[in-house]
């Protein structure tokens, strides 16, 4: 069972959350190259190790946030609100 730390609600059972995928992909500008769009829509680093990912506290506060988690062990390394890069960063 994953115990996921929502930045707003604290640690909760994984069943309250919905996964949103890789948090490092950034939507390119509408007129960006096809290669940039291919990268954004389809290609992923898919790391074997720490992974920055999006989660939605769907059965809780309803907020999206970023979670850092190790894909080899499922160890959770921290979470931050969506508008910050690392914990402690100013919004």
């Amino acid at each position: 069972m994953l115990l996921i730390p929502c930045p707003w609600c604290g640690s909760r059972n994984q069943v309250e959350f919905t996964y949103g995928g890789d948090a490092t992909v950034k939507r390119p500008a509408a007129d960006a190259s096809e290669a940039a769009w291919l990268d954004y829509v389809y290609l992923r680093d898919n790391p074997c190790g720490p992974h920055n990912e999006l989660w939605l506290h769907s059965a809780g506060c309803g907020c999206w946030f970023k979670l850092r988690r190790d894909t080899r062990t499922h160890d959770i390394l921290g979470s931050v609100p969506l508008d910050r890069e690392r914990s402690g960063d100013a919004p």
Partner: protein
Amino acid sequence: MRYSIFSLVRNAATFHENWPLAWRSPAPKRSYDAVVIGGGGHGLATAYYLAKEHGITNVAVLEKGWLGGGNTGRNTTIVRSNYHLDPNAHFYEFSLKLWEGLSQELNFNVMYSARGVLNLVHSPADIDAAIRRGNAMRLNGIDAEFLTRDQIAARIPNLDCSADARFPILGGLLQPRGGTVRHDAVAWGYARGADARGVDIIQRCEVTGIRIERGAVVGVDTTQGFIATTRLGLAVAGHSGHVAAMAGLRLPIESHVLQALVSEPVKPVLDTVVTSGAVHFYISQSDKGELVMGGDLDFYNSYAQRGNLPSIEHVVTACLALFPSFGRLKMLRTWGGIMDMTMDGSPIIGKLPIKGLTMTGGWCYGGFKATPASGWLHAYTIARDSPHALNEAFTLERFAQGRTIDEKGAGPYAWAH
């Protein structure tokens, strides 16, 4: 050595203590005409067909663990070809035809059992979709039969077909030639066949780097030293992205964990593979009597080969909704395998944008049943340096070209397929 009733009798006389080893364990040579990374079903099948169909026998299969220790030994052994889209239908039907003759081909009993795969439907929209898919299959020459609720109730008496079931069953699409295969035997049979034709199978040999010079593969660095080759095939399933990264490639793949579980063994109670897309559940009974079941992904990226309890709870809940009589069974084991989930739910079998580099991967939930065709077509692509008609649609470039093969129409979310 050819296995037969005579070899069995002869070895029975010596208490089965003198059987020859089924394959050698050689030290790696300095170079090979072709190297396949991954000693699971797909990699071993690739090597087998390279030797048998194309006469390329100076081949090594490199496996970081032991043969069939990854997804080949972790799946739920189901084979079928009940796909709607043409590329998938032709590919998986080719695979099912290879399954039908595989025990004879390999002189190794893979225990293919055409017990039928039944997809249950629970709503009028489900019925329409199932009949449409069945018609598409029949147009592609694949067996499919729509069963009514009464026909299903007569065929599978312990399935709850009552009108007050939690998810009432309205019918189902049956593929009679679908069924199960003993998964370990597939790895062992291909390994034995490849080895007999001269292929070196090298276990406990992890690839740590791929060497590329002027845009072409020249070899691999491994835990047993450098091995030179100009033709390198990847058959590493959940680790496709990880190994492709050694060649500087990013793939449209995410690795996710999928769990399965088995009950304690019981007398024969279920002679068909039963699945339900609506409740995300599938079940069959193994020849040992265990009920083998599974459901959805855990829905987060993982390389851990183990998952968490919510997915297991979901599977067991679905099982009891469909088969209330299984409620007294104890579960014996659970395990996880790492799925290479592509962004359109279909595999990538073909050349990569580095000369001499090919892959077969991106299997999502469907890797086991694809094993023979995957190996056959991967070998063809390596030998001819060009894809076969059956895998020319499964390119890496299809994502850039807008030619995705999205069976479910789920869009570019790896975990949604």
